[in-house]
């Protein structure tokens, strides 16, 4: 498949992800109503908003797990919503973490992690295993390499899901409510891993309800409601000086 004409892309200056007037319709319902957003390298963008505001749909459109009905998404200078794009190549550079972890239950932790690098990037088993073990060590789960997902706690599963995505050496990580399915006492261990990623300047887009975490880690917070971005800004502007009434009332409810 041919790649789209690549416009000159400078990772230090140009946005890593550029979303232009993104629209998504589900059977008459407008989940996204024209969303535009630029995400630069090293950005940690948190997307918050009431349920049904389209924030998860927005995130899933970024790697085309949802097919947008209109608008464009550029990733590293390539319009990945374009016609003849091989989306599989671009997805290798966009790690994704799901609310329900979605580990492969028929594989061990280690197999979960090395299958994609081995199959897609033709990395040898030895090299992939070494990389995986290093990542496991980092999240404190080295001793669980040979366990099956069903033998792990929710927090452990989510940490594995994160390092599984990291094994592909992605340029951006997408998090879709990564702590929403966790017992409260396990939220911290997952946020700790994400905090570490943010400190290493990993570009991240996070859909979450963890407001305190957003305040602490985000470089930019985006408020979505009714399929549009109503307001966005630095955590300080966003949480301490909200401009729109919708955001003010939303923050009152969740903080």
């Amino acid at each position, binding site marked *: 498949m041919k790649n789209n004409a690549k416009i000159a892309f400078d990772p230090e200056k140009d946005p890593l992800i550029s979303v232009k007037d993104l629209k998504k319709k589900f059977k008459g319902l407008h989940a996204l109503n024209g969303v535009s957003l630029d995400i630069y390298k090293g950005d940690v963008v948190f997307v918050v908003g009431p349920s049904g505001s389209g924030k998860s749909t927005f995130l899933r459109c970024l790697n085309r797990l949802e097919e947008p009905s209109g608008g464009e998404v550029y990733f590293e200078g390539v319009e990945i919503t374009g016609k003849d794009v091989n989306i599989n190549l671009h*997805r290798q550079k966009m790690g994704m973490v799901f609310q329900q972890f*979605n580990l492969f239950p028929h594989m061990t932790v280690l197999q979960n992690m090395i299958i994609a690098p081995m199959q897609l990037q033709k990395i040898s088993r030895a090299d992939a295993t070494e990389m995986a073990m290093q990542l496991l060590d980092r999240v404190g789960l080295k001793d669980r390499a040979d366990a*099956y997902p069903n033998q792990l706690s929710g927090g452990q599963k989510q940490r594995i899901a994160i390092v599984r995505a990291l094994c592909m050496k992605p340029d951006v990580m997408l998090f879709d409510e990564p702590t929403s399915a966790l017992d409260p006492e396990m939220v911290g261990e997952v946020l700790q891993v994400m905090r570490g990623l943010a400190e290493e300047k990993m570009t991240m887009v996070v859909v979450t309800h963890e407001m305190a975490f957003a305040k602490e880690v985000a470089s930019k917070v985006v408020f979505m409601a009714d399929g549009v971005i109503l307001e966005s800004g630095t955590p300080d502007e966003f949480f301490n000086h909200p401009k729109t009434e919708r955001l003010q009332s939303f923050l009152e409810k969740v903080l």
Partner: protein
Amino acid sequence: MEFADKFQKDFYLNFIKDDRWRYIVNGLGVTLKVTLFAVLIGIVLGFVVAIIRSTHDKAGSMSKFLRGTLNVLNFLCNVYLTVIRGTPVLVQLLIIYFVIFASVRIDKSFVAIIAFGINSGAYVAEIVRGGIMSIDQGQFEAGRSLGFSFTKTMMLIILPQTFKNVLPALGNEFIVLLKETSVAGYIALEDLTKGGDIIRSRTYSALFPLLAVAIIYLAIVILLSQLLKLLERRLRSSEK
């Protein structure tokens, strides 16, 4: 003593005299051969149809050409499923033997393999499709989000889990198939059932040959069930 005497006599008459046991042994061979190859055809056909049907229902965006091809294939699969599941296997066997292969001299066990294979494929297809559809959509999305193509996601992530889940139902289907092949006598194929029946028609003694046939079927089914149980347990080892 009288009973033992009669037993011995009947046994001799039905199995030993004129080497009649050969009907049973040869018949068993034919039954096993037909079942084995029909199962293989059924699995291949079933998986292909199931993958076409679930791809049609599941796959997201694709080019117009691919979508069109898929629609045609899906339609053909639906026709196949409707016709095969809507008519008795015996009628299908007779049609294949007396209509489709009417003008060619052909090995009867080949005809039986084709007929039972095609028949079994339809049932396997729906079992496997159910298995594919029961895998959580998140598994699919996780595979795709890592960069796997639709095909690779199917091969590496969805089908291995599907196979494990449908194994009990597949085993059941193969047990049914083994016993269904007993109607092959209608095209004069000398399978196990026909073998017993031939002995009966020679000796005018029904009990021994038919009992022997029944016991052999039962033994194979029990053996098969045990093997499946073993395989299932091995595949489930990851779900302690």
